[in-house]
């Protein structure tokens, strides 16, 4: 019988304090604080649009090709079809080859489809009939909140490509621990608490995406959604500032 069982390096989660009595989290943040966000637009010359986004130690590259002529199978005569691919690098998780999200290829396909749904709610697809927009996201380092980071990176890449969007789509993860709502979880917190990922269109306040990894108590949900929405608006402020800086540095009048 095999006595070996793989245990993550954070197997001591239950004994570790995810939230100290002083209200500080494992990485020293307060409950409502986001991790440090760094981003760059236009990182690849050949793609129509690209972006690199870091949220804490989660690092994601997104590239957009198109809108271009659609493959016959994907072509829709009145709107553009969006084709999303989610990929997580083998070296992105705690242990090489063992992906932090778990589930491997099936999980990646599911997240790709989810991303496609999220983006379809925001791209003005009716402007690009018979076309196809390819969005590729690649997770280089996974440290919690990978899906939310991918949504944010894809938004930046679409803006860089000049694709018409109804609004930004900003995502963030949230959880509740000892009655205290937390936002933007890292991987330690993800393994110790249930996770909710929400995406928000800041202008209309609509939520095109809501995903939960485990069950929450229904009484907590309202408060959790409020906290997640505030966090998404914070993300929007940060991304918007980055886009404005990018565009104004490249303004050219002949």
């Amino acid at each position, binding site marked *: 019988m095999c006595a070996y069982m793989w245990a993550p390096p954070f197997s001591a989660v239950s004994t570790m304090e995810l939230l100290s009595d002083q209200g500080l989290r494992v990485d020293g943040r307060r409950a409502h604080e986001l991790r440090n966000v760094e981003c760059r637009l236009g990182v690849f010359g050949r793609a*129509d*649009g690209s972006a690199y986004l870091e949220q804490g130690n989660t690092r994601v590259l997104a590239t957009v090709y*198109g*809108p*271009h*002529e659609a493959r016959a199978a994907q072509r829709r005569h009145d709107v553009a079809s969006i084709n999303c691919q989610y990929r997580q690098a083998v070296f992105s998780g705690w242990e090489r080859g063992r992906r932090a999200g778990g589930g491997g290829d099936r999980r990646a396909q599911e997240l790709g489809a989810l991303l496609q749904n999220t983006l379809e709610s925001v791209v*003005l697809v009716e402007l*690009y*009939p*018979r*076309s196809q927009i390819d969005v590729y996201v690649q997770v280089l380092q996974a440290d919690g909140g990978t899906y939310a980071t991918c949504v944010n990176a894809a938004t930046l890449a679409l*803006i*860089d*490509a*000049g*694709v*018409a*969007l*109804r*609004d*930004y789509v900003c995502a963030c993860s949230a959880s509740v621990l000892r009655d205290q709502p937390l936002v933007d979880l890292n991987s330690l917190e993800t393994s110790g608490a249930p996770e909710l990922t929400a995406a928000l*269109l*800041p*202008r209309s306040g609509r939520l095109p995406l809501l995903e939960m990894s485990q069950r929450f108590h229904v009484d907590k949900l309202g408060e959790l959604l409020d906290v997640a929405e505030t966090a998404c608006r914070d993300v929007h402020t940060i991304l*918007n500032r980055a*886009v*404005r800086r*990018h*565009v*104004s*540095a*490249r*303004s*050219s*009048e*002949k």
Partner: protein
Amino acid sequence: MEVDIRLAAERLRQEEATRGAAQLVTPGDTVTGDGGFMRGHGTYKDGENLVASVAGFVRRINRLISVQPLKARYNGEIGDVVIGRVIEVQQKRWKVDTCSRLHSLLMLSSVNLPGGEQRRKTQEDELAMRSYLEEGDLISAEVQNIFSDGSLSLHTRSLKYGKLSQGVMVAVPSNLVLRRKNHFHDLPCGATVILGNNGYIWICATAVGEDGGAGTGGYVQNLERVPLPEREVISRLRNCILALAGSWMMLYDTSILYAFEASSKFQARDLLKPEVMAEVADLTRKRLDLEAAE
């Protein structure tokens, strides 16, 4: 072996902080709440409000408001000069990639075949289409019409247009090519530049004699060896164009020529280094600004 070691450096840009009254908007920003304006490109209506759908500067022409993004796929207009690559030969037409949203079409009926303008297109021509243009060939053409789905119909019914033979193609964002009366330039440095409105730029040696180069719309390619000095001029021009595009400067005959002159103190291959590219673009910008001020 020569080794080139440089420090990573963030390029400093001496840009004026504000650019006049132009308003910078990002997707979801309200451009105006006044219902009296018309909706242009890059905007959409949300009730009474006019909202931006791309990130860029607002342009207002009378009552029309549009937002132009930094870069986007080429949006064709009738009369534009484009450079394209043939990607498919079909019944009576070629499919051409013009960096546009959809593939463009070049009809057999809108090309000049050898034998003059008045020549009728026969069944044999249809069968021999691949001998005129085949997959992978580069052509210069003009936008004749825009179909309802947004794809472009091209024509090459002039001796200016047609198949391109030996030269270099550069792809830049299509917004950077300034719309001018003329897009074919024989530069004094000895090269011909075709600035396609779609962001594809063709550089080749200027043809001598009455028949050859870009001036013929023929289907014969001149495959003679291009002498080394001309090849150097072509590669220098290519690097200059990339330098200008990298600094997001508009491309037209004067700016390209000034960049070429500014680059003369460097070797052509050094122009691929980022700091040299920035310097060439900066010198060009200063010279253009100086002329505009006069």
